[in-house]
């Protein structure tokens, strides 16, 4: 039968348990693993070996700069180059009047960048994912904490890893198929 093993999923009841488990697993040398929790448990990301980078911040900064310069240019160009008009005796480049728009566009583009950046880096939207097959996984968005060690981890072997996970006395350890 053509079903492959995605990994082993351990279900825990408390954030403390899963945090301990994740740290141990990482220390054991498991690297291809992830946790699934109903809320952001502090330290868990680091525990599964995720280095918090500046990627997102960089994306947002780029968005902001685009909005900032784009905004000012948009006000400046038509008034000075494109179609200069005498408006109430004001000079063509009356820059103070262009600041509000510049500012608003800075914010707008930053915010859009933040949203798009976050989703992109997280690979969302992703309607299907093997972990959804795990029994009881619907409680990952309620009150249970899941640790999944993936099958393609070099150190992964079905028996040993299951044994290893059983060691943290989870509610249950189950095989996740993709």
């Amino acid at each position, binding site marked *: 039968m053509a079903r492959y093993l995605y990994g082993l999923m351990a279900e825990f009841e408390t954030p403390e348990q899963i945090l301990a488990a994740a740290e141990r697993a990482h220390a054991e040398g498991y690297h291809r693993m992830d946790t699934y929790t109903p809320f952001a448990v502090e330290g868990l990301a680091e525990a599964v070996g995720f280095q918090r980078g500046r990627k997102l911040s960089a994306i947002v900064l780029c968005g902001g700069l685009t909005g900032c310069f784009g905004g000012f240019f948009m006000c400046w160009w038509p008034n000075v180059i494109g179609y200069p008009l*005498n408006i109430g005796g004001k000079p063509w480049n009356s820059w103070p009047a262009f600041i509000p728009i510049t500012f608003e566009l800075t914010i707008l583009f930053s915010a859009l960048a933040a949203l798009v950046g976050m989703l992109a880096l997280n690979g969302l939207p992703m309607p299907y994912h093997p972990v959804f097959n795990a029994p009881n996984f619907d409680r990952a968005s309620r009150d249970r904490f899941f640790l999944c060690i993936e099958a393609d981890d070099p150190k992964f072997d079905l028996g040993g890893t299951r044994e290893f996970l059983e060691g943290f006395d989870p509610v249950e350890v189950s095989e996740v198929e993709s």
Partner: protein
Amino acid sequence: MPNPMTDSKDDLKASELVQIQLPSDSANPHPPRFWRSLDELNNGAAYQKGLAHEFPEGRFPKTSGQGGLNRRDLLKVMGASAGLAGLTACTKLPPEKIVPYVRQPEEFVPGIPLFYATAMPLGGIGRGVLVESHMGRPTKVEGNPDHPGSLGGADVFGQASVLTLYDPDRSQVPIHFGHLASWDGFIADFGDHLASESSTGGAGLRILTGSITSPTLADQIKSVLSQFPSAGWHQYEPCGRDNAREGAKLAFGQYVNTIYRLDKADVILSLDSDFLFAEPGGLRYARDFAGRRRMVDPSGTTNRLYVLESTPSITGSLADHRVPIRSSDIQAVARAAAQGLGVPSGSDAALPAGMSADWVAALVHDLQAHRASSLVVAGEQQPPSVHALAHAINHALGNVGVTVIYTDPVEANATDEIKSLKDLVADMDGGRVRTLLMIGVNPAYNAPADVPFVAAIQKVDFRVHLGLHQDETAEVCHWHVPETHYLEAWGDVRNYDGSASIIQPLIAPLYGGKSAHEMMAVLQGQTNLSTHDLVRGYWQRQAEAGHLAPAAASNFETFWETSLNNGWIEGTTLAVKQVTANASAGAATTAAESNAQGLEIVFRPDPSVWDGSFANNAWLQELPRPFSKLTWDNTLLVSPATAARLGLQREDVVKIVLEGHEVEAPVLILPGQAANSVALHLGYGRRRAGGVGTGVGVNAYAIRTSDAPWIAAGATLTKTGDKHHLVTTQNHHLIDQNGQKVEEESEAAFDRHVIRVATVEEYGRDPNFAADPPEETTAAPSMYPKVDYSQGYSWGMSVDLNTCIGCNACVVACYAENNIAVVGKEEVDNGRDMQWIRVDTYFRGDLDNPEAYNEVMLCQHCENAPCEYVCPVGATVHSPEGLNLMVYNRCVGTRYCSNNCPYKVRRFNFKLYSDWDTPSLYPLRNPDVTVRSRGVMEKCTYCVQRIMEAKIVAEREDRTLRDGEIQTACQQTCPTQAIVFGNINDPESRVSKLKAQSRDYGLLRDLNVRPRTTYLARLTNPNVEIKG
């Protein structure tokens, strides 16, 4: 207006008109023959059927504004037909040759208007005008610079007369017993009656006209009367000049015409006279007065004006000394003055309340000090005795021949017109009248209350009415024939100084109307003479008889064309007449002095609708009346003191009972109105004026009696408890609802230096009195550099508050020039009037006798225009020449510009105000100006279309514009030339010179908006001997 069409349910008629008339019209190019089709229509079975179910036999159908039709439906329905006639006619010139004012290519150059000189009769007396014609459509009336009675100025009536031409409510077809009829049908019917009349020498024939000055018409009438020796000719002008005529008779034993030379008068005493506005010569007088009034620098001299009047008048607002007293008391003051001047003045009556002997003494000194350069003017509403006194005083002061001259009367047959009408009514009542022909009159509406015209006319078996509208008089006539407008038919008329003008038509009759001349011709059995031939024929006879310049006789053709070209006929000015006033003439009568006590009521022609003949003119109805700023109404004007005494408040409806006649009118408390004197303007309360004027205001004729037509005593006022909502465009709070004084607006105006005024003496001491006060200096540094306008043209305007008389002519001129919409009473009440230029009035001092200051307010074309930088779409921007441009098709209507306009001169189309539905109004519009639609902002453009036109001409001729080549509409019409527009980059231009004067000041300069429109501060020239 063909009656079938007033029935909104019945569009059948309109459609039939379409089908039948168009082919026949294309067959006959001449609009006059257009109604031929109606004969067919007449006999058409469908028509008969339609008629049958529409009018029960013999019953005259209701007309405009009646039968629950509101104005809009009405215009729609009427427009349908008016349009058909209008559109077929509007591009047709009269068949005869008419001569443009300025020589131009004879054929039309599309887009280039032609100007024609002609004359507008008002009260029978002519006013010289130039009419702008676009492709054969008269669109604008201006004053005629070559005409002695105009010198280029035009008044509200002249300006608005073009709207009357296109009035969709005008009568459009002969009516016989309420049925559509035809001119031929009329001639046949009339012919029969004349035949029977001729047997008796016309014993039963009467003709009723207004005052006739037209030489041709008079000549025709004369020959008619020779044909019907026993027939009678009666004249009646509701606002006629009987008193002036009788006064002259009193003084000189004969009718003479009095002409004033205000340019020569240094001291002027007005006895209740509004000579700057309401006299036939008003335009010329205003120009002369302003010329003498104008001061360039402190070294100059100016005139001094004393005004005694009961109700605020335009003349009064310019007075250096104005005393509001009852009109009936003015006689006593005149006598006192006469006495002081050694003129016999009969019984020396005690001075009335409000007049001090010192005042009169000071006045007398002043007059004596200015012998032969002073002038006493008696108001047309004053009794003959006062006129006689005025003549005597002028005589005593040696003014005759200098500041006042006399000629033969301008009327062809001067007569006591009220008496004339009374005689007619007596004859009718006595059954002595069988055939009555009325030409351009409306006695059924405007006959005095004690003259039972309507009752009497029932006894006349054949009644014919020739009139512009199917008015109250048409209603009681068997035949109504549509009359031609003065822009539609040939004619002639005499002007205030007797000089005659040819009235040349600019357009063939829109609705196949007939002129008085044609009617007269019919009486003589000539049914196929054209008016043109009649008029030209008359003058040719005159020329041949040698009554005109010798050149005329030799080459009449050229003479004729020159006369048409100039707008008046040379050699027709009446010769100055040497008459000596019977010194004691004034003493002769003391009539009308009986009513020394109690409340008097004064009747006046309305400054907007005159005697009621303009009642259906929306421009004039919506025009804010001077001082009160009232629109769409007439009211009983009461002084604050009297109102307090009688417990009257603004908008109270009072019942006025006078000699058993009564009318109910709303009260308006007007500062400057004399105590114990109330005023009511004539011309309102029309029953059949048309969609616009019907039912507006109250009919003052209903209580006006023939023996006291202008000043009546013994009126009783009783509050009815009702309120009538009055709509004013300013001074909302001057007298608030509780009748209690709230002078905030005027006080603020002076705190803010909106009005700057000084006496001549102060001006001499400090020529810079009008400079901005130090705390308001605009020296404050601006964050931004100034825009450089020093290259090319820079447009600017200067308004001389010292000569502006606040006559409103500029406002109406702007209506006509810029296609401004009329919004109606309700919308004016909502504060949405659309006038681009307005005359602001501020009062100073005691509200019972305040100084009134007029200030023309229009877009100031600020260099740092606050309206521009707030517009989100750049719909209002600045031109390199300093014009504050308004781009209608870019405007999205946020109204931010108006909010940010410190002068609030912008106007917004809150709804669809322009009338897009009435075809007869299409040809009226100025093709050079956009007709604005709903939701856009608009405002004064300095008549940018005129600027562009002039620039194109200049560029074609490869030259720069000459100063004065561009005149804004308001400037061109201004009778006193108070408005001057031009290029402020040219130091030699008139406007630059005016702006260079020390009295020049800008409004709200402290806002650093740098207005291009500035004002010359007002000067007064009080007599130092008079305190306060």
